[in-house]
């Protein structure tokens, strides 16, 4: 029986980036397979945007990175036929009307469909005659999302796409993305500070801290590997600590522990056990040396 090997959409080996002598990325190694939804999470200044910029050919770097088999910095223009991205929802050209934008894009981008873009705007308040500069921030985000979703791309990269939007727009934005865009052939990489809002849609997670990848695994593995224990009784705390929690904090009189790789059977007698949310895990792992010291996939 023959087995088809599908190349990763993104491959990085020893990815480094310096700004003015200061190293921002310290040799990242990772592969991103096709058809996955990746969350890239980290503090401000951790190197998320720099990593994405390297993938998108927007910045030079040391090491190797290949996106769809191409060097993004050398071949950005060619690569953008199959890669779409939103790095800043306020970056749409404000001097254009919506219909002018679509008309230009249909000539500039070989994989852009005006009909699709129009259909994505149905049900919104955005009209073809509107000038982009008159749109609200939420409408601008809807328009930008309609533009990128109308591009038949293999990889979509969203860097803080909902920054500054209210909760209604944010929910609508992600629902639309999931329902109308994602297919098995497409890969999505997304960064946001509101990790809990995208947790439901992620297949994989990457935590980046100070230019290092400290966690890179599938969400199923995260759920199996990490456990959260809420212990009310003071006498159980010592037993919980003996199992080596990666993080401990007190919330409203309860002590919360997060464990890495400890079987749940061992934790259940000590209190209420659950899977930590991504934001809890993020807070926990940002304070320890590394979550998975072995080479990331």
């Amino acid at each position, binding site marked *: 029986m023959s087995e088809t090997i599908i190349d990763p959409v993104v491959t990085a080996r020893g990815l480094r980036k310096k700004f003015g002598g200061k190293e921002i990325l310290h040799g990242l190694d990772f592969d991103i397979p096709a058809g996955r939804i990746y969350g890239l999470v980290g503090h401000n200044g951790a190197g998320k*945007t720099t990593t994405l*910029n390297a993938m*998108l050919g*927007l*910045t*030079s770097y040391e090491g190797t990175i290949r996106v769809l088999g191409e060097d993004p910095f050398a071949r*950005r*223009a*060619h*690569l*953008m*036929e199959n890669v*779409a*991205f*939103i*790095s*800043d929802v*306020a*970056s*749409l*050209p*404000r*001097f*254009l009307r919506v219909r*002018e934008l679509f008309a*230009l*894009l249909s*000539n*500039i*981008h*070989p994989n852009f469909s005006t009909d699709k873009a129009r259909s994505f705007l149905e049900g919104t308040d955005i009209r073809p005659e509107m000038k982009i500069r008159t749109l609200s921030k939420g409408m601008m985000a809807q328009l930008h999302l309609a533009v*990128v979703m109308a591009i038949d791309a293999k990889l979509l990269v969203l860097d803080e796409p909902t920054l500054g939007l209210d909760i209604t727009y944010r929910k609508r934005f992600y629902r639309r993305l999931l329902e109308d865009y994602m297919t098995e052939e497409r890969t999505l990489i997304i960064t946001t500070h509101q990790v809990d809002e995208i947790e439901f849609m992620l297949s994989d997670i990457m935590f980046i801290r100070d230019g290092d990848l400290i966690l890179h695994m599938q969400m199923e593995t995260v759920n199996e590997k990490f456990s959260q224990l809420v212990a009310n009784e003071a006498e159980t705390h010592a037993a919980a600590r003996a199992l080596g929690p990666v993080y401990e904090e007190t919330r409203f009189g309860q002590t919360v522990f997060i464990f890495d790789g400890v079987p749940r059977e061992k934790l259940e007698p000590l209190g209420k056990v659950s899977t930590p949310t991504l934001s809890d895990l993020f807070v926990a792992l940002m304070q320890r040396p590394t979550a998975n010291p072995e080479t990331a996939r």
Partner: protein
Amino acid sequence: MKAFAALVHREFIEHRGAFFIGPLLLVAVVVAMTVLAFTVGRVDVRITGSMATMLPGVVLFWPAMVLGVAWGLYLLAVLFFYCADGFAADKRNNSMLFWKSMPVSDFRMLLAKLAAAITILPGAVYAVVLLSMALMLATAQIAMMINGTAAMSSLLGLVTIFWNVALIELVQLLVSLLWYLPFMALVGAMAVVVGRWAIPLSLLLPTLAATVEWVTLGGLHPFETRTWHYLSYRATMREAGMVDTWIADGPMGVDVNSGVAYALDLISRIDWLQVGIGIAFALGVLYLASEYRRRAAAN
């Protein structure tokens, strides 16, 4: 090619205010003033009609030429500001990341801006020049009709003047754009790097270059160097030899049928080697600017 044409078109959309809508408004104001001047009797319609019939060269050809020169000066100014500002506009108006998400290289992006500066943008101004000339000649025709001196021959005379002046101004425009192409590219390339600072820097650069030669190679003063002489030569507007005759003879001596002769004379006087060098220089500085743009932080 379709993508390149679309990029040139976007430059027109972005800058149509300066190159098309603004000039149209200006024409509308001048037309309104002309109508008002005739209406209140500030200009006598019968005298105008008589003069246009008897001395079309004086009343129509020369004013049409002067109109063209005035629009040429306007175009020179807006093109300079377009190059100093438009080449950096993507960064200034925060749309750089959007355009970088398109499958177009930075070089093609800048090349489209330069192409717009020598095609659609001056083309829009030229269209307004033709419109303003047509309005001026139509005013003359109406004045002749009111005066009772209008005839088929006078209409043909107006068409002849229109065609000749339009040809002279078109050829003058095309030659000037080609001649000044390296300057436009240089200002645009500087704008990519330093933004609007390109405006003062581009004015200082020739003096700086001449001073460097004076300091390093000697000479009487910076304005007596080869650099300065060369830049002066390259900055001088090319024109046909008959302009000197027209100025010497005055409006009465002008031949309203001189369009083709002017065009041929101007083309024969152009230093085409320098035009070629200028095009190569323009592409070179644009490439360097595109490499800067490719490497510079987009956000």
